[in-house]
């Protein structure tokens, strides 16, 4: 039945996506909620919580305030905290209850901003979408509000912004560092990373970059805003494995002079099976046994990483039949016609048990496999799904190492 999860979990929610995206930028972020959202977010979805200062709170909505529509308490509490903490900006976002009572977040944000003079965002979250939607809104909001002026490009070479970097997609196991190294080692200048490791001030000069690299679904709307405002082209992709890395580098080089973004005209050109065939160099040795290469693979996960993983499987490991199940709302134009955008347990269960020989997904998806003797399951933990549970199993998927990691996982205990 739709909306029923008998055995599966769910993804981090929209308001947690906002918190994760803006965590390091010095804002005061308030989830308008009774209780529970804050501990859920910072227990399961925020690995930085113990060590890194960030002002993320819940409003403590009460039954009385909800019934009476008392927004003043929220406004006054936010103003009190803002006066003491001097945040660079303020965010209020909502859980299901404010959605139900029709809380006007943009309106409340205007009131707060008028009273304290601090830029304030009112995001219309409701706890009923995935983190992708929330983080998208957050990054796009920052691009709209703080990337105001066109900055001079004072550098030689190509300068990049990395858009869509949060622990929900990259965790804290080395992927962000590897991603930044990849950009620098390939001769690019890293202008800013949205938003791990850079300040709001650094991010605000995003227009100084020549190209925006969208490395997860969460960065796409911000890329569109920056293209609209400054004409900055963007490319979508992740350097996960040699072929995806090569493709991404080529796209960055191509995007700058042509001022185009790499997926606008032909979104499937990058990672489609057809494209893979074109790039399939038959002279390269097949490192996987035929029996492995012939098994159909389903990858479950966020679109950009899933797509890059597919590229690695297809072009680096020569597995042709690879489909993506994307449960996180945004396909970034990267899905092919055989792929599926769904978070429904019944649909996912049917697909993996009827169509897959190998499934690559977060370990919690293992629970839908009907017969482990038929479907091989490869654990690929995703923080936005299983939270902090599987850090020790998370691979560094940026760089060429993921090819070896996948190859080992694909052949481990292979008896088929």
């Amino acid at each position, binding site marked *: 039945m739709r909306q029923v999860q008998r055995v599966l979990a*769910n993804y981090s*929610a929209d308001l947690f996506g906002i918190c994760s995206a803006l965590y390091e930028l010095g804002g005061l972020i308030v989830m308008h909620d009774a209780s*529970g959202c804050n501990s859920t977010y910072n227990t399961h979805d925020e690995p930085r919580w113990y060590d890194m200062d960030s002002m993320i*709170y819940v409003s403590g909505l009460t039954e009385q305030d909800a019934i009476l529509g008392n927004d003043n308490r929220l406004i006054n509490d936010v103003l009190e905290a803002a006066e003491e903490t001097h945040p660079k900006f303020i965010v209020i976002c909502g859980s299901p209850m404010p959605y139900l009572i029709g809380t006007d977040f943009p309106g409340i944000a205007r009131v707060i901003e008028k009273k304290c003079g601090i830029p304030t965002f009112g995001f219309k979250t409701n706890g009923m979408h995935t983190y992708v939607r929330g983080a998208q809104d957050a990054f796009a909001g920052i691009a709209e509000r703080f990337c105001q002026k066109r900055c001079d490009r004072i550098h030689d070479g190509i300068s990049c912004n990395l858009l869509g970097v949060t622990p929900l997609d990259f965790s804290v196991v080395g992927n962000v560092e590897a991603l930044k190294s990849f950009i620098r080692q390939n001769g690019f200048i890293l202008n800013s990373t949205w938003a791990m490791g850079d300040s709001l001030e650094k991010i605000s000069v995003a227009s100084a970059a020549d190209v925006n690299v969208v490395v997860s679904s969460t960065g796409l709307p911000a890329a569109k805003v920056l293209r609209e405002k400054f004409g900055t082209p963007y490319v979508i992709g992740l350097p996960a494995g040699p072929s995806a890395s090569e493709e991404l580098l080529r796209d960055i080089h191509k995007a700058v002079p042509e001022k185009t973004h790499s997926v606008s005209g032909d979104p499937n050109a990058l990672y489609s099976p057809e494209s893979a065939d074109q790039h399939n160099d038959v002279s390269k040795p097949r490192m996987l046994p035929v029996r492995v290469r012939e098994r159909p693979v389903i990858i479950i996960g966020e679109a950009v990483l899933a797509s890059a993983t597919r590229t690695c499987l297809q072009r680096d490991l020569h597995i042709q039949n690879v489909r993506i199940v994307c449960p996180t709302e945004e396909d970034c134009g990267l899905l092919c016609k055989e792929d599926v955008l769904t978070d429904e347990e019944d649909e996912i269960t049917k697909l993996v048990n009827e169509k897959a020989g190998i499934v690559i997904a977060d370990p919690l998806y293992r629970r839908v496999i009907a017969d482990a003797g038929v479907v091989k399951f490869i654990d690929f933990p995703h923080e936005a799904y299983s939270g902090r549970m599987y850090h020790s199993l998370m691979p560094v998927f940026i760089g060429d190492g993921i090819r070896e990691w996948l190859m080992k996982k694909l052949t481990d205990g292979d008896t088929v």
Partner: protein
Amino acid sequence: MLQNLHKTDTDTAEVKITSVDTYTPFKSGLEYSCSARGTWTIAHTSMLIPHCHQIFVCPEGCLRGVVLSAAEYGGLDRFSMVTVKEEDFVSGKMEHLFIDGITDILTHLSPAPPAALIYSCCIHQFMGVDLAFIFRTLRERFPKIDIIDCYMNPTMRKSKYSPDELMRRQLYSALEMMPKNQKSVNVIGNDFAFDTDNELAVMLKDAGYTLRDIVRCREYSEYKKMAESIANIYIWPAAYAGAVMLEEKLQQKALSLPVSYDYEEIDRELEKAAGYFNAPLPDLFALREAADRALERAHLVIGDMPVEIDYTATARPLGLAVLLFQHGFHVTAVYTDSVMPGEEKAVDWLKVHYPDLPVRATINFRNRIMQRDSADKNGGRLLAIGQKAAYYSGTEYFVNMIQMSGLHGYHGIITLAGWMEEASRVKKDTRKIISVKGSGCSG
């Protein structure tokens, strides 16, 4: 160590005990959630019913915390959910989603669980969803399963009953009237097994009573047998609603014997229990002496090492502070967001004898950038009792006690003194320990 980047004055997240003249000494406002996760949530407590299955019907954001709690303690085999979407707010079919979703889940479970705990949430109550109809229908459809209505409704946490109180009431709502066993008594409302070595438990055992505790139930039939008891002892304040419900429904006497560190109060509680159960009273003088000796021993080891206490360790953190002060310990702070009823006498005593004792909030927004360095200021030597005190003080020496951890009475004090002694000697990996959500829970 967090750096205070925002120049916030954290003083208003701290008051001196002398200025505490209300149960709520801190102004409510934006709330912070610190990294001490050991306390149980409703998703942990409900697992105490053996072999039950829990089902949450909620929006995605609300489900996230409970499903990952279940995943972390290995309880996903006993957990399912129905996701409420935006369209369900306006479709007028919430009852159908509820009933059909639960039906789908329960019919797929093999074997069927003896009980299903089904959680509605805040939005259902605000939308006026017909919960009575839903549960009546489900009980008709699944007559062999105890359908237990549960509530994850934090918006109502300041209303009549908090979700925690409701949980500790509904946990026992599947008990049904049965002939009474005059020699059976329950202890209810606790997440951790009630210590059977304490004088109350020993007194009851010596008088021929069977003491039943949901935490010790391994089979559903054992849980159901709690209905034969003549009384429910509750030591945790949040169990009050459950005790009242059982008194009305099953005519089981509600007996409040709260945790206490005041010898006179402990004596009164034991006398009350002895009177009600017609049991011989233990030697109270000897028990007091034993408690004093244990505290003296602990003090010899701990000496002037600062001690900080928080409310997650015990329902009476201020009462515990009094006991420790009276035995020479150097208590330097108590963390509690409110003063619990029953702590009035302790507040009065502290105001007279230690008026400058700091009382600190734990969820105030200023706590976020509070300097967690009181242990550092004392060369790392600080003994915390409770996870939040450990977190905020930054110490590696702490007693990992959660909701009294089953301790009660004089024997509880003796055990705690031993734990303090040990904790003052042996460093702990504080971060690792307090990061575990629902400490001690397993699916």
